[in-house]
């Protein structure tokens, strides 16, 4: 019989307000095996932990039940505390009487009743707990960063600086990401390219960093410390090692009519191209959708002009399989499509542009060479209307996103300010719901736009934009002025909401990392573990976790790197001891368990058993590799004889909980 101590936490008033903690500890004191039961204000505090440790030592407790917050919160805390007092950490069970009881039940009577039952279930389970010892698994000392934007680059640089090899997988032909398309950065107005491209070069030159551009992750297997990742290196039809990036081919290619994605389709490029001048790797790529040679077999101009013979029309996609100890998701964001926002006439007039397009129109390397010209007729615009929150903060979510995209207020202020600075003859209107400027020097920046640069900030939404006679008729409401405004604008700029990159969802599935309903990666804890995914060994960097500006992204990228470095600096990891175990005496050797194991943790051996009457029997039996098993339990149900059981969540333990709850 176990000697169980029960510790009921008040969590201040979080639990005690709707659960009678005294009644819970009294009721649990009457359970068989319970030798001590008490309640205390904050069990997780040092004083609370001390109390548990003291009772373990004093009473020789063999099991501990803590009725407190979710085990996802403090199970590890209490396990550690008990371990220090000499109790096996797996002899501790948590009854979740906060998230799953006190916080959701207003009625104290029913809340208390339920808390008692949850406590009884935990006591019933502890009766069947057995001390478990964690095994160890080795750590592959190499990291994978998925996404080569500023987040990925920064994470990779920091990991590489600490001395660990790291691979960056980038789906585009160059790293750099969205930041390469940005002209100036708020609130300092320094040039994005000037601060980004040196980092790109650093990454390329760092011997610990291996850039796999034009590549995508195809499959992920394994677990923390031991991932095996399949990476597809897409055929770029140019030998990256030979290409010098001279750009001759991109000038000679006869296929000139390819929309240039770097400039968001505002101009064109050739079928063979280098995305932009500072691309890393500085190597051309052939766009198979437009290349005449690849499509018809006739042309070959690039091959003829290339002096180093880098062109290879026969190149095929290549699959690499690499081992990693840690994976960082840095897949970034995309502005949402404007298809559903026809009221702003985005599809009707080329002079209605998104903010990112506006960045290109302002950029010296952009389609207009940095001169602000209307895409429709190349004339200089005089009246500009900026619309904020296009697709952000939308209720219902049908059309847009429920969240604030966070960066739009600041970049719109930047755009307005820069326009007024370069072209003092322009009138600039900004329509907003709220102006949100919570960042260092952000509000000052916004105020400069209004006060120094005379940008007209109007609280209210634009209702309709109608192209008419070369003008854009803007109908809007001025909520503070209490009037309808009609503005004849030359250009309208839409601050499109941001959303996670489309590649994030399938990647999350491969990583078994969870996502929220907006497809942003979820962090292990929103406050305390913001750069870790709940899946061990998977970390989050940049806007894939939520909308972020550049400084925040870089900060998180560094934080993710620190977590990865912490992981890779260990030689071995402690395994989860809650793994499957096969009872060889009952095993039929039928292979059902092996077929459902996602980790290949189960193997079979032929083993000799003593039979009746001094006979021996050779039987095939399953064995579980505890370093590989992750403890999902699929095998335990596939096994008809019940030979396969899961430590820490055994059949008997779960049934004991069921019994306690249903009583």
């Amino acid at each position, binding site marked *: 019989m176990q000697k169980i101590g029960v510790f009921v936490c008040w969590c201040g008033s979080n639990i005690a307000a709707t659960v009678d903690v005294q009644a819970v500890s009294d009721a649990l004191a*009457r*359970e*068989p095996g319970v030798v001590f039961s008490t309640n205390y204000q904050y069990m997780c505090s040092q004083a609370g932990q001390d109390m548990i440790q003291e009772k373990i030592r004093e009473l020789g407790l063999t099991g501990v039940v803590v009725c407190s917050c979710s085990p996802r919160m403090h199970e590890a805390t209490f396990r550690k505390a008990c371990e220090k007092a000499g109790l096996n950490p797996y002899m501790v069970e948590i009854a979740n009487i906060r998230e799953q009881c006190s916080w959701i039940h207003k009625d104290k009577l029913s809340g208390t009743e339920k808390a008692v039952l949850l406590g009884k279930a935990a006591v019933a389970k502890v009766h069947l707990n057995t001390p478990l010892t964690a095994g160890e698994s080795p750590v592959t000392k190499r990291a994978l960063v998925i996404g080569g934007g500023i987040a990925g680059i920064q994470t990779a640089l920091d990991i590489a600086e600490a001395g660990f090899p790291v691979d960056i997988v980038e789906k585009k032909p160059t790293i750099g990401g969205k930041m390469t398309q940005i002209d100036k950065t708020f609130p300092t107005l320094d040039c994005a390219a000037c601060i980004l491209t040196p980092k790109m070069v650093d990454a390329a030159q760092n011997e610990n960093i291996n850039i796999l551009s034009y590549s995508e992750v195809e499959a992920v297997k394994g677990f923390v410390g031991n991932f095996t990742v399949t990476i597809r290196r897409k055929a770029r039809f140019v030998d990256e090692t030979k290409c010098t990036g001279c750009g001759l081919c991109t000038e000679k290619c006869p296929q000139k009519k390819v929309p240039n994605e770097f400039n968001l389709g505002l101009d064109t490029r050739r079928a063979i191209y280098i995305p932009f001048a500072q691309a890393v790797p500085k190597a051309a790529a052939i766009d198979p959708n437009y290349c005449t040679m690849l499509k018809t077999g006739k042309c070959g101009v690039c091959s003829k002009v290339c002096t180093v013979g880098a062109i290879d029309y026969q190149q095929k996609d290549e699959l690499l399989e690499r081992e990693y100890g840690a994976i960082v998701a840095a897949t970034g964001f995309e502005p949402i499509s404007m298809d559903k926002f026809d009221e702003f006439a985005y599809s009707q007039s080329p002079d209605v542009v998104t903010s990112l397009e506006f960045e290109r129109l302002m950029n010296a390397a952009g389609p207009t060479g940095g001169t602000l010209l209307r895409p429709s007729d190349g004339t200089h615009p005089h009246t500009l209307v900026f619309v904020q929150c296009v697709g952000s903060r939308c209720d219902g979510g049908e059309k847009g996103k429920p969240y604030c995209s966070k960066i739009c207020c600041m970049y719109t202020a930047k755009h307005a300010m820069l326009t007024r600075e370069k072209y003092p003859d322009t009138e600039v209107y900004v329509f907003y719901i709220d102006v949100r400027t919570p960042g260092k020097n952000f509000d000052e920046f916004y105020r400069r736009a209004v006060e120094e640069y005379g940008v007209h900030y109007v609280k209210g939404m634009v209702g309709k934009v109608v192209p008419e006679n070369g003008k854009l008729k803007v109908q809007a409401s001025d909520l503070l002025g209490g009037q309808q405004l009609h503005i004849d604008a030359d250009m309208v700029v839409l601050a499109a909401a941001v959303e996670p990159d489309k590649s994030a969802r399938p990647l999350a599935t491969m990583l078994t990392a969870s996502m929220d309903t907006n497809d942003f990666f979820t962090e292990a804890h929103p406050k305390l573990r913001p750069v870790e995914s709940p899946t061990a060994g998977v970390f989050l960097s940049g806007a894939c976790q939520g909308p972020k500006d550049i400084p925040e992204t870089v900060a998180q990228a560094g934080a993710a790197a620190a977590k990865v470095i912490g992981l890779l600096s260990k030689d071995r990891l402690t395994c989860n001891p809650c793994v499957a175990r096969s009872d060889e005496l009952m095993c039929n050797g039928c292979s059902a368990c092996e077929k459902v194991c996602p980790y290949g943790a189960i193997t079979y051996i032929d083993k000799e058993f003593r039979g*009746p*009457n001094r006979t021996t029997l050779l039987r095939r039996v399953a064995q579980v590799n505890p370093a590989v098993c992750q403890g999902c339990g699929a095998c335990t149900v596939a096994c008809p004889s019940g030979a396969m059981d899961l430590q820490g969540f055994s059949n008997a333990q779960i049934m004991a909980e069921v*019994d*306690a709850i*249903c*009583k």
Partner: protein
Amino acid sequence: MKKLPLSQLDAFFAALAAGQELYIPAGDAGTAAFTPWREGLKLTPALNTSRSAKDLFFPQVENLVDFKVTGKQIEIIENRAPAKPFVIFGVRACDCRSFDILDKVFLADPADTYYKTRRENGTIVTLACTEPEETCFCTALGIDPANPAGDVSGWIAEDTLYLQANTGKGSALLETLPMLEEGEKPELDQPVFDRLPLKDLDWSAFGGERMMEHFNSPKWASLAESCLGCGSCTFVCPTCQCYDIKDFNTGSEIKRFRCWDSCMYSDFTLMSAGQPRPTQLERFRQRFMHKLVYYPSTHEGEFGCVGCGRCLQKCPISMNIVKVAGTLGKEETP
């Protein structure tokens, strides 16, 4: 002797059921069972029930005692179903004989009070056989299927039921039934009993005598080799009397119950040291040795079998006491 026109059988059952619970064999061949009588229930056309009549005295599952746990206290509660008088109508001669065999086990000192109470409260009305099955061999065991025992013996001849009380309990029962008239049953000529294929079964080789010779016979190996180790023979057998005592934890109390056990099962008489009969051969041998040798050795040569033939019909692989006795009893041909 009393008699009753069969046309009044329903009224007769109703009158019997008015005084106590009445069980009659009902249902189709193959699934017939002793069933509590209710308006409209008819006698089965089958010769006998699928399970034997022993169920009514020795049910498959019986709650013996409860242990109630309150906090850290355990209370012991005797949990015996209240004794109620009942009548079983239509018991065949073979099953009726099985009660004698069970009595010698359960009523011997110390008596099994659960069984004893049921025996005292039960009145057995037998029914003579007229259409035996080819699997019947009670006659070879000295049972007269045409003249069954019981508290009351019954015969159906033409369209009349004849009843003869054999015990005080039987007489008392018949006296409560006003619709019965006096009458004598005619002599019945039943040559079919002489045509039964198993009527000449010779079990003279068995009994308490040649115990070790039979026990050590090499023939068990081939007899037992295809036994599946199920309990169907045991559970349909009217004389099998082994049981297991188990505890069932309801969460708030322990219900200690007994249930039929089968010596064919691998956990039969399982002990901490293991299974004393480790393979199916030993378990199979146990069942037949018990019926043919052990029981007779302690009960004046009486076999632990009544020749009802149920195991012949029910064994999944058609291995049965007739085949075993036939094989073992055959003298070795040199």
